[in-house]
């Protein structure tokens, strides 16, 4: 989250280029949307027991369990004028890259407004967008594998206890790449990455000193702070 914000600030000031990043969460962690209540959405005690961290995002949307083994996370950051002005249209354009990436794996995916991508009627990707300082940031998940038992233990999805019925219900609404095809994690990453980069002049790079310095500052002072994570 800190890297996203540092990069956003860099793009806004003209010191960073438009950036696409792919990453995974280590340790596995929970992120909540900007408008959510941490207490209402996350079982903090269970997170502590399992060594799962938590953070509030800058973006709206829901609570997400980011499993190290089961997820590819992406962020795309660029000046707002790179994208359609309308919120829905910009979601459609960026999610269209993910749809195209799934297509490279042989999966027929479609964008489901507001912010989901589905395969065979089930959610395989969730996305969230913010626009600040003239820069659009969209980040999201590509579900490679499903860790439903852990997810249900750390997210307060329901007031019911974990049950086979609830897990079965979730399985009916959510899918992952492993359920749909035989692609490896690396093949999935390559397909999504290739789709994002299509038609774009690009170079592979690393974070600048300024971006890293600012990200470290934000990670320490904002994203680790109780004031931010318990904001609402």
């Amino acid at each position, binding site marked *: 989250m800190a890297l996203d914000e540092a990069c956003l600030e860099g793009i806004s000031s003209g010191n960073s280029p438009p950036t696409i990043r792919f990453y995974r969460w280590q340790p596995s962690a929970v992120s909540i*949307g*900007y*408008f*959510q*209540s941490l207490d*209402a959405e996350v079982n903090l005690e269970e997170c502590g027991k399992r060594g799962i961290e938590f953070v509030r995002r*800058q*973006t*709206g*949307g*829901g*609570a997400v369990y980011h499993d190290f083994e089961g997820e590819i996370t992406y962020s795309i950051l660029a000046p707002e004028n790179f994208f359609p002005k309308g*919120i*829905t249209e910009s979601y459609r354009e960026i999610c269209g890259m993910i749809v195209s990436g799934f297509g490279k794996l042989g999966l027929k995916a479609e964008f489901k407004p*507001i*912010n989901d991508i589905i395969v065979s009627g089930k959610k395989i990707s969730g996305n*969230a*967008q*913010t*626009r*600040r300082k003239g820069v659009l940031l969209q980040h999201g998940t590509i579900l490679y594998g499903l860790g439903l038992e852990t997810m249900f233990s750390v997210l307060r999805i329901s007031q019911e206890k974990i049950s086979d019925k609830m897990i079965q219900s979730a399985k009916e609404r959510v899918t992952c790449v492993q359920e749909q095809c035989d692609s490896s994690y690396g093949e999935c990453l390559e397909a999504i990455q290739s789709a994002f980069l299509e038609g774009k002049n690009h170079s592979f790079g690393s974070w600048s000193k300024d971006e890293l310095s600012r990200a470290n500052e934000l990670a320490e002072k904002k994203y680790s702070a109780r004031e931010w994570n318990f904001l*609402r």
Partner: protein
Amino acid sequence: MNSGLGEFTFKVPGGKLVRATVKFKEKIENAKITGDFFLYPEEAIKDIECCLEFCTPLESEAELATRIAKALAMTRAELHGVSTQDIARAVKGAIQNAK
């Protein structure tokens, strides 16, 4: 009911979840709106919550929705996943659930 603290949550069909937590006496003293919706710019959530303060608990859903719409119009803020009517319904529901 002249005072209390109440909460109401519902999922908008085909949309997102919204929760209102409202504390009131003769007027709404504090309203917190949470959920998995989107609002651009995000800071406009404070405008929504502020406009609800000092409303009377007796205002109708339609009146509350009008207040919320006016607050959003000030910054041309956009709600996605829930509407001003949905938020008003959550606020009214929280008042009715108050203990």
